[in-house]
């Protein structure tokens, strides 16, 4: 007898079939004596099981008031954790959304774009002329002492048109260029970077990448929901 048929017959005995299943099974029972016999055997088995006499408990199991432990105070720590992670996730998603709105989505696009910046700089580095050309653009009328100019550039990124310059507008692509400027200028514009100079490490964009914030927020919300559903199931 296929297991599916056994399951149908068992559920049939308990009135647990849908109307369509019952009609279909009734039709089969009328046509298949073997199935009918199986049903009767299962019915006999359940009847005998229901007639199984209960066993009388050997003693009373009531608790002694003098020795019974007090009910534990239930601190809904899991509830707080669910709520906390849910709220934290929501806050992160909101933060990421605000970041995206404020920056018009540039932040997400810039994260991968920030990597090529050092390479670009390195290509520009060997020639002092290039530096001298770019420095005035970034700091306006740059004085011989480079540090104040660099500071100014760091705090107030100048608007640059196109190319790598546009990365400074959001502060993510800017720092490598500025640091490089600071690195090369203190020795005067004469300091020349050699072609073998180790490129400066890519400076990570300040703050958390928006995509990561969003993903973390969604993960926290998902965890809180899963936790909530699991705890509902387990009671």
């Amino acid at each position: 007898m296929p297991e599916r048929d056994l399951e149908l017959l068992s559920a049939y005995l308990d009135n647990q079939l849908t109307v369509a299943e019952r009609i279909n099974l009734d039709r089969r029972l009328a046509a298949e004596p073997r199935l009918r016999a199986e049903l009767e055997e299962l019915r006999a088995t359940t009847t005998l099981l229901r007639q199984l006499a209960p066993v009388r408990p050997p003693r009373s199991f009531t608790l002694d008031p003098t020795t019974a432990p007090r009910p534990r105070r239930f601190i809904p720590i899991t509830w707080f954790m669910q709520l906390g992670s849910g709220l934290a996730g929501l806050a992160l998603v909101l933060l990421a959304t605000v970041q995206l709105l404020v920056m018009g989505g540039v932040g997400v696009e810039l994260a991968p774009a920030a990597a090529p910046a050092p390479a670009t700089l390195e290509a520009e580095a060997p020639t002092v002329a290039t530096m001298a050309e770019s420095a005035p653009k970034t700091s306006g009328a740059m004085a011989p002492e480079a540090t104040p100019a660099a500071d100014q550039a760091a705090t107030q990124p100048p608007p640059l048109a196109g190319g790598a310059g546009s990365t400074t507008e959001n502060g993510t692509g800017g720092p490598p260029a500025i640091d490089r400027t600071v690195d090369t200028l203190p020795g005067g514009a004469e300091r020349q970077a050699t072609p073998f100079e180790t490129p400066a490490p890519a400076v990570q964009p300040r703050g958390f990448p928006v995509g990561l914030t969003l993903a973390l927020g969604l993960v926290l919300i998902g965890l809180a929901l899963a936790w909530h559903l699991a705890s509902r199931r387990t009671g």
Partner: protein
Amino acid sequence: MANEELRLVAAGQRGDVEAFNQLVRLYEGRVYNLCYRMLSDADAAADATQDTFIAAYRNLNRFRGGLFRAWLLRIATNTCYDMLRARQRRPAVSLDAGYEDEDAGPRLDLPDPAESPDEAVLRRELAQALELGIAQLPEDQRIVVILSDVQGLAYDEIAAVTNTTLGTVKSRLSRARARLRDILRAGELLPSKFRHDDE
């Protein structure tokens, strides 16, 4: 009834042992029988029953509404599983030790005066075969058949007690019944009008 039960639960949650003991009196027979069928041992069943009520009282504040009976039977089920696991680690007690145990408490199947001696013997044989058959079932099928066919719980309540879905309950129950049917058939204990020996 349900309201009275919830009132007793609420009183128990506040530390009223006597209110909780009313719940114990209400359910001790059912819990003990569940443990007895699961463990097939009267002493172990008594221990499991006592542990169940102590655990239920200690964790009464975790009960968040719904059917108290299902919640209690779930604790009993988990207690039995723990005992069965401990028994598997230290298999010192025979599975059918309870059947010959004089301390098991008198059965409630008092002989029917209208019953012939042959019928009484057959009934006893049947009961033994069923008890042995239940004891041989895998634990997950055993609990479902006890709750459904011995204790008469509905599928949804069984699903709540065993922390499974309705589909799983249906499937386990059908397998358990088929297995018990096979045992009865093998012992020729099914009433002859139901028997078909074409296998």
